[in-house]
């Protein structure tokens, strides 16, 4: 028997084809003022050979069709504005609206990256203020806001590691990564030219110190950790971990994806971290946008400051701000211009709205909410690691697997209950993982509905496993054939011939 669902019910939603399927010659949505300078003949100026005939199959639609099209598409999505995302390590918190308003202010949105510094003090002050705040929050000495996302920041961090060690005459060969790490970590290591070696986790789900001591040699450039780790567990031996790494001349890199548990509570700079990246689109409330844009600043201890990417923001004697390019030991540029400025504005607005007190409250509520869920579900879902957890927790599908139900099935059934799914099958050290992070933005009501849903699904796993294996049932489309999509990739629309 399917369980009763309280949080959601089916509703008529508009169907909508591809924009190309609505196209008709002559329709248009644009409007330009009439040309007020003499017209020119492109073929005369550029030569006929340089011109294109037309943009084949580019859509021709009216404004109302565009508004309907994208509005309808949006109604098929879920968002933080709709309800909770229990996604572990994603920190899907509320995206404050004032952040959207300030980003769009004309003087900010229309600032050109190459307008002279004298005319960019407003933008530079925003960057400077954000830098100071993030340094305070992380307990580090220097920072770059250039990276466009966490992975980009990670790459920057590893390149800084390489540069620092090279300056000491040996870049070394390997980077150590716990087996619980996010996939960007090993991919980044490779992009930076390092070999990856795994460090085992112990039975508490933390870095195994003996395993670390065994692999920490003078060939190792850095240990990349996430703290709290992907199980939501704080590395209680972090001081010793830092000591083991530093004793061999290596650096401790922290993936700051889980900073939401630590704001105002403790700081990476205070527990031995040399480099930390932040995900502004996680901890600092900037919107996910369906997959970006984000921002991944990197904060470092002062020994690494000389290697930061150019340009670096400096305050002049007269108090004005200027980018400096004269950094002889820099690793170079990581991207054109200065960073995802529009995202940085939003992060600063978030920090200014909260102040120190608000950030601490956010961390506290995040940890409270996660522990509340954990307590309410640990009798129905297996909790493989019993250590205390902070802002997220990881269950496994072990109890449900008896009935042939796996974590993906539970996740898909959760969609029918009106929630987005949790993080499925990650971290890899927990087979059949369910990784849950509610964030501080969830009310007790939403948390209770989530707990009810998860408990109901656990019951369904026993009484009606088929229902779960074929879920979701009430979404616009059912489970999609991913095998087909990968075997015969169709990556664009083509007109029917």
């Amino acid at each position: 028997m399917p369980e009763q669902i309280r949080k959601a019910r089916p509703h008529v939603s508009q169907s909508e084809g591809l924009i190309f399927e609505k196209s008709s010659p002559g329709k248009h949505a644009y409007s330009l003022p009439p040309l007020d300078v003499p017209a020119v003949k492109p073929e005369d100026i550029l030569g006929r050979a340089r011109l294109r005939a037309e943009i084949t199959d580019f859509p021709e639609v009216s404004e109302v069709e565009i508004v309907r099209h994208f509005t309808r598409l949006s109604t098929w999505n879920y968002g933080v504005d709709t309800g909770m995302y229990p996604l572990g390590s994603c920190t899907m918190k509320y995206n404050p609206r004032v952040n959207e308003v300030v980003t769009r202010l004309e003087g900010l949105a229309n600032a050109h990256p190459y307008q002279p510094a004298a005319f960019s003090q407003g933008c530079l002050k925003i960057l400077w203020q954000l830098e100071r705040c993030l340094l305070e929050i992380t307990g580090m000495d220097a920072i770059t806001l250039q990276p466009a996302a966490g992975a980009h920041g990670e790459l920057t961090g590893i390149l800084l590691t390489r540069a620092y060690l090279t300056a000491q005459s040996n870049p070394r060969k390997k980077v150590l990564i716990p087996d619980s790490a996010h996939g960007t970590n090993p991919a980044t290591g490779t992009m930076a030219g390092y070999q990856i070696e795994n460090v085992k986790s112990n039975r508490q789900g933390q870095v195994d110190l003996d395993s670390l001591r065994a692999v920490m040699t003078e060939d190792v450039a850095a240990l990349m950790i996430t703290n709290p780790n992907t199980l939501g567990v704080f590395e209680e031996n972090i001081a010793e971990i830092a000591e083991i790494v530093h004793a061999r001349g290596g650096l401790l890199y922290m993936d700051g994806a889980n900073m939401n548990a630590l704001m105002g509570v403790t700081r990476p700079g205070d527990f031995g971290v040399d480099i930390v990246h932040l995900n502004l689109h996680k901890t600092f409330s900037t919107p996910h946008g369906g997959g970006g844009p984000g921002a991944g600043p990197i904060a470092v201890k002062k020994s690494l400051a000389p290697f930061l990417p150019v340009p670096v923001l400096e305050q002049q004697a007269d108090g004005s701000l200027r980018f400096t390019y004269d950094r002889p030991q820099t690793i170079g540029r990581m991207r054109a211009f200065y960073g995802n400025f529009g995202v940085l504005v939003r992060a600063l607005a978030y920090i200014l709205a909260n102040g120190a007190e608000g950030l601490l409250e956010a961390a506290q509520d995040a940890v409270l909410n996660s522990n509340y869920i954990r307590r309410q579900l640990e009798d129905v879902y297996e909790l493989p690691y019993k250590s205390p957890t902070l802002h997220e927790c990881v269950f496994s599908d072990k109890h449900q697997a008896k009935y042939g139900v796996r974590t993906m099935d539970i996740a898909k059934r959760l969609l029918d209950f009106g929630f987005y799914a949790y993080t499925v099958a990650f971290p890899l050290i927990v087979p059949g993982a369910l990784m849950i992070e509610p964030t501080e933005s969830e009310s007790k009501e939403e948390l209770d509905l989530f707990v009810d849903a998860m408990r109901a699904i656990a019951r369904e796993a026993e009484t009606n496993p088929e229902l779960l294996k074929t879920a979701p049932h009430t979404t616009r489309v059912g489970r999609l054939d991913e095998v087909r999509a990968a075997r015969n990739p169709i990556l664009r629309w083509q007109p029917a011939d």
Partner: protein
Amino acid sequence: MRYLPTSAAERTEMLAALGCASIEDLFASIPAAIRLRHPLTLPPAMSEPEILDYFRARAQENAPDYLRFLGAGAYYHFQPVVIDALISRGEFFTAYTPYQAEISQGTLQSIFEFQTLICQLTAQEIANASLYDGSTGLAEGAIMAVRLTDRSRVLVARSIHPEYREVLATYARNQKFDIEELPYLPSGQLDPQALARRLNQQTAAVAIQSPNFFGCLEEVAALAAQVHQQGALLVSVINEPVALGLLRPPAEADIVVLEAQALGLPPSFGGPYVGVLATKEKYVRSMPGRLAGETTDAAGRRGFVLTLATREQHIRREKATSNICTNQALCALMASIFMCVYGKQGLRELAEQNLAKAHYAASALGKVPGTKRLFSAPFFNEFVLQVPGDTSLVLRRLAEQKILAGIELARFYPELKNTLLICVTETHTRADIDRLVAGYRAALGVGGA
């Protein structure tokens, strides 16, 4: 705090359910020695009106009312108002990456449309769902070419955006390939003879940009032929895609790196922008970045999913084609809406206006005594002027007239002293351009026309 929905009573209730005396108990796993003992030193929390005031004040400090003729990889174009209206819908901008396809069809279908529009615009066979920007796109494109050809050298035109080349150099230093720069001719275009001399069987790719940093059009088809003869790949960068409303797309290129900021995103002091990689179907498994693909569900309904994810970091891990995870999805959506609003006819008309206005400006400025266009190659909406005097002084005087007239090229190209890169788009009225010309004359101390 207004962003927190939990009341004090509810906190008490939840703590009771956990058997905890206070929230402090939940942080017991953090060693006491590293706990903060005092609040962070941050500006005091601001109310909404204070936040608005703070940023309004910052906005005013960026000369918002000045006339700007700046391009160089960040372009001013009219942003159709529907773009903001649509992307401000919470279901778009607060949505997560569409891994759970069944409730992310809005995002996935729009990505599929974006991929299609980019293919149509660039005359390539497949395109990804976006990379961070054009500069990192160039680096990813070069890495892809090196991977595909198994060769170790990339030749890079000096006429490519200088900051893009710097980024490429940073990435190259840490991978198994090296870079060599190719000079430009007095025409402003890449020197094909220099290319011929450096091109050989170790060349993985040749990278060019068209329109290039000087605004000049490169001979893409001819260069492609040259490059392909040696079994190398042509990587073609476009960072003013409005030009593609009129100009022949780089169909002969093997990898196209597009910066789509000009398609509906504001310059926003350098970001967020949106890079895209477009290429031939046969290279799909070597391509970095997310891809949305069409498929069906069990009931035969059409739907879209992220596909070929095995190339990506979360599965392939150390063997991934890139480490990219978050991309620029919302920015790509803005570009999609822009392309739909303008459509086939509109993008052409938009490009024609840009061409006309830039040529009107170049012509008028070229008539100022001592001033001439530096390069002879055809241009779209950007051009370089040789200025008869100290460019810094000229720019300063123009700024006094509230005109930010262009970029001093010597900053990036020391060999090009006293030259200005000027960009004119459809956003400039005739009156604006006339004001620029008059201002320029005044700045030079020359009489009126």
